[in-house]
């Protein structure tokens, strides 16, 4: 009977019983983030310093300041809210430190700074971090209890409230001096362009540069190669399920390929859509968050399929250039329904007339969204 442990939620994974536990998982996530952070510092600080194009030294090292302050703010907010709520019987300072060690307060802040425009005003960033941390995580009871991804709640709050601050904040002073970059991020220039053309890729230094990531964009999002390294590490360590990123990116690739063909464009178009913006980062670090994504394989595949469609919907049909954050938060909700349904399927163990309605609804939604994406996404 030892195999069947009856414990109260949250259940992170069976790993709690074996060697791996949440703290090693979170350590692995941090390690996987290192390449992206390193590249962000190289691109936004080292290159700027080397080229000597900056108005002040504060401006040059601004990304490092945000990279330190945002996780710190999030940690402080976590400590304060833990103290105020007195959760799990925290009485002394020592208890608080112990609790902080296992609640991973730095992650929401770190993620938010990595998916936000680089030169966003500091107070805007910190307010968004605080909102993401407190509203998205602590009000729900802290680590493991949240139903929305806290970092994405903060990011959505930022986009909703401070939209006027977000426009040029993507560009370094270095990038602003180069003409080709004057149209902001690749996705914004695509949204602004009247028709799709490969010039957009060439303006940003070709497909290879999009892969490397030396173009304007959020701190941690631009370098697909660095994210890929992190992803491989996480998959090898079995921290994340490979199904979610692979199916997610595959769906996006497939739909944008069809849209590209209809518009008479080549393979560059789907590649461009996947390499730019936060898709890769979202697919690896955000969509796979164990607390907010479905728990079963089938559920995860359904989740990732809809996620890909939604991202295409918000990007190519909607009037926002990005759309990854919105689609992942949306899927956090739909994921709850998927999770419930798939669990029920597994308990009943076979598809009967009675319990197939969920699959039918899913398929109808899937097809409808697919058709809508393809019909409306063509420019």
């Amino acid at each position, binding site marked *: 009977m030892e195999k069947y442990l009856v414990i*109260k*939620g*949250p259940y992170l994974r069976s790993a709690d019983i074996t060697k791996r536990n949440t703290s090693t998982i979170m350590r692995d996530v941090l390690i996987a983030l290192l390449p992206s952070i390193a590249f962000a510092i190289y691109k936004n600080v080292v290159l700027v310093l080397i080229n000597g194009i900056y108005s002040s030294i504060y401006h040059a090292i601004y990304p490092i300041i945000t990279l330190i302050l945002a996780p710190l703010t999030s940690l402080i907010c976590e400590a304060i809210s833990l103290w105020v*709520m007195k*959760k799990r019987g925290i009485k002394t300072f020592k208890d608080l430190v112990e609790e902080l060690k296992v609640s991973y307060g730095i992650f929401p802040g770190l993620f938010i700074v990595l998916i936000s425009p680089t030169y966003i005003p500091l107070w805007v960033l910190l307010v968004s971090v605080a909102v993401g941390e407190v*509203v*998205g995580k*602590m*009000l*729900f*009871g802290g680590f493991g*209890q949240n*139903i*929305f991804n806290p970092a994405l*709640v903060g990011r*959505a*709050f930022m*986009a*909703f409230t401070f939209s006027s601050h977000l426009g040029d904040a993507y560009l370094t002073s270095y990038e602003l001096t180069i003409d080709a970059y004057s149209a902001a991020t690749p996705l914004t220039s695509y*949204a*602004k362009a*009247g028709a799709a053309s490969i010039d957009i890729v060439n303006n940003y230094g070709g497909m290879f540069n999009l892969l490397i990531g030396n173009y304007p964009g959020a701190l941690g999002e631009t370098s697909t190669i660095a994210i890929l390294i992190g992803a491989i590490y996480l998959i090898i360590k079995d921290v994340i399920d490979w199904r979610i990123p692979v199916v997610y990116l595959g769906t996006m690739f497939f739909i944008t390929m069809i849209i590209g063909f209809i518009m008479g464009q080549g393979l560059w178009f789907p590649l461009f859509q996947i390499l730019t913006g936060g898709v890769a980062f979202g697919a690896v670090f955000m969509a796979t968050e164990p607390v907010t994504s479905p728990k079963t394989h089938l559920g995860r595949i359904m989740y990732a399929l809809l996620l890909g469609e939604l991202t295409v*919907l*918000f990007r190519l*049909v*909607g*009037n*926002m250039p990005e759309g990854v954050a*919105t689609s992942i*938060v*949306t899927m956090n*909700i739909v994921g*709850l*329904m998927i999770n*419930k349904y798939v669990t029920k399927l597994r308990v009943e163990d076979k598809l009967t007339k009675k319990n197939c309605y969920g699959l039918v609804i899913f398929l109808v939604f899937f097809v409808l969204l697919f058709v809508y994406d393809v019909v*409306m996404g063509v420019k």
Partner: protein
Amino acid sequence: MNMAQVITILISTIFIENIILSQFLGICSFLGVSKKRSSAIGMSISVLVVIILATLVTWLLYNYVLVVFDLVYLKTIIFILVIASLVQIIEIIIKKFAPSLYKSLGIYLPLITTNCAILGIALKTVNYGYGFGTMLLYAIGSGIGYFVVMYIFSVIREELEQRNLPKAMKGIPIALVVASILAILFSRYVGIAPKVEDEEEALRETYVIENDIVEDENIIYYDHNYEDLNI
């Protein structure tokens, strides 16, 4: 009215201008009845039906009786009476012809009379001076929007029951926080609707061209690419 306009009105009333999250109508029932999935579905189906019927009847009454006899100031009192009696009639009809449905919906029907969603939508359609088609779509979209939010909410609240919430946030407070996040989310859906080709606009342009006024070269009061605003 073409298909694109229909979809646009529906999407904007369901998500962007959601009856609960953005217009603040029907909050009481939304917080009170969204605890369980079955009750949320029952309530929202009743609201959906009543909202469409009530808006239809009140719109007709307003435009063909009240406006004609110059009794516009009686609209609130008349509307609420119409809604109350409509709910009564629906209740009687369901009781007689579908007793099983009555069993599941019956308890929600009396609550609907004082649900401000119904009166709110009825008043808004006449205040904004909507035409018949827009009115109907607006009512349908609002009802579906109510349904969507209630359903999502009941799922989330059932899930939250199993989570280890702080004691202070249990129940209504956390529901309001989730509503806040949902409202941010829905407001981000702007633009997923098709871009409407405005019929009136098209008519206007043909009219202008027919009258040959365009040729005055100093005056460019009408341009073809104002669509570029539509990023």
